[in-house]
């Protein structure tokens, strides 16, 4: 079993990139400390032997929800775009990607 380990400042920076968050130097320091406190607390879970236990993702059993493949009215384009920070010709506009 993988052990709970301390999270380093470098790991916090990496996670911030994965999470698409830009953090200040001060935030990186604060989150490193706070995440370690919370993960230390979570380390109590290691005490439990769960090798024979199935994980629960949902408390109630879920089933596929199927329906007939039929055309229905969908939300009009203007409504979809009404909250866009930047839109043009029916598209969302974003900064240059390549």
């Amino acid at each position: 079993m993988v052990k709970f380990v301390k999270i380093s400042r470098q790991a916090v920076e990496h996670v911030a990139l994965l999470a698409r968050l830009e953090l200040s130097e001060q935030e990186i320091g604060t989150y490193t400390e706070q995440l370690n406190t919370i993960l230390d607390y979570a380390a109590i879970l290691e005490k439990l032997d769960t090798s024979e236990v199935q994980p629960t993702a949902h408390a109630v059993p879920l089933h596929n929800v199927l329906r007939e493949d039929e055309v229905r009215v969908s939300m009009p384009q203007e409504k979809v775009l009404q909250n866009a920070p930047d839109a043009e010709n029916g598209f969302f506009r974003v900064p240059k990607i390549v």
Partner: protein
Amino acid sequence: MDITAKTAGELHDLLVQKEITSTELTHAFLDRVRRLEGQVQAYVTVTDKSALKRAAEVDAKIARGEAIGTLEGIPMALKDNMCTEGIRTTCSSKMLEEFVPPYSAEVAIRLQEAGAILLGKLNMDEFAMGSSTENSRFFPTHNPWDLERVPGGSSGGAAASVAAAEAVYALGSDTGGSIRQPAAFCGVVGMKPTYGAVSRYGLIAFASSLDQIGPLTKDVRDNALVMNAIAGHDRKDSTSVRFDKPDYTQFLGKNIKGLKIGIPREYFGEGIDSDVAKVIWDAVAALKDLGAEAEECSLPHTDYAMPAYYLIAPAECSSNLARYDGVRYGYRAEGDDLISMVRKTRAEGFGPEVKRRIMLGTYALSSGYYDAYYVKAQKVRTLIKQDFDQAFGTYDVLLSPTAPTVAFKFGEKSSNPLSMYLSDICTVPVNLAGIPGISIPAGFVGGLPVGLHLMGKAFDEGTLYQVAYAFEQHTGFHKVKPSTKEVAAHGLE
């Protein structure tokens, strides 16, 4: 008695008997909101114009001699994470400060169809993450019982609005205690229904396997009435469950003789204030007087619920909140390229607690740690669910305090995330197991309300209402109103 102090049940009778019009009633509440909001700050948005328009429609219907529904013409409010078409829905976040949803949440539609008068949208911890409403990006909400204390959270605006009679009832959402803990802190009734009993369509997601919408009300009857209106299957929510929805009011007034109540000893451990525990033991005595059989029991994995929750909820949050990228809706910051735009948008749009949980969740789901943290927590979730399944083999209902303490002061826990998280220690296991839980007023410590927490079998909200109603009618704590000078001076006895 001031009209705003009345319950939905009482107001319905007054409307039917033409003692009052919905317009008068709506004006009374809007006036009260105007007078009290400077102190309480429960509302993010007040929708006075549309409220009065709706009220006039209901009055016209009554004038035509048509019958009205139980909730028709009665003013209420929604936590600001439930989408309302054409009405700004912010999640108390800068990220959604200008967001005007193009559609309404299913609960908003159902209440609108039931003739409810929407007074506005209620303050909350940003994206429902928090236990004090101090994480709102706009302002903190104040507890009507003591304005220097928090109302609890994350549905703090919802609980405070009902306690201060700024709405007859409100809907909140509960991921780890966010309906029940503020209900306890503000001395109102708060129900977290079974997962899947109420549609989450249009509820802005925090942790999808735990989130559930429910009513906060002045008394148990109103709570059952609102559940009647909002519960039931919805095809637009694929996790919504088809079940035989009862009339929840049919359980009110049934006696509780011989009903078996389990008191899990793990819920009275370290961290539970001894005065709060005493109030709960008095409540046990009251339930025994009413003929219930109560005895101690054990839910052995309780201590593992909080750490499991604080891996599962942030993991789901980090995934759900990935959608806030500044492209389709919400706040956008300027950036040189797409990634820097997205990172800046999220850095400026989210507050510290939301970022903390995104970071924690992203870490728990990241390569190399997924099994150690996330899967481990899900396995522990299975054990917690099994504890409940076993206990409900013997008991009809389980009982505990709702929160370990009464409402705390502003700033008391905000510098230490972990100590804030622990204020949900009694409520979190219920969300992990997906079962219903209700908090009802059970007495006072130092003049501040204490909540009694009742937990039931999945889809057995009825038995919770039965016990809650019997207790409420026997003790009458729900009739005690906040006596804060600012709140009481405006109409409450």
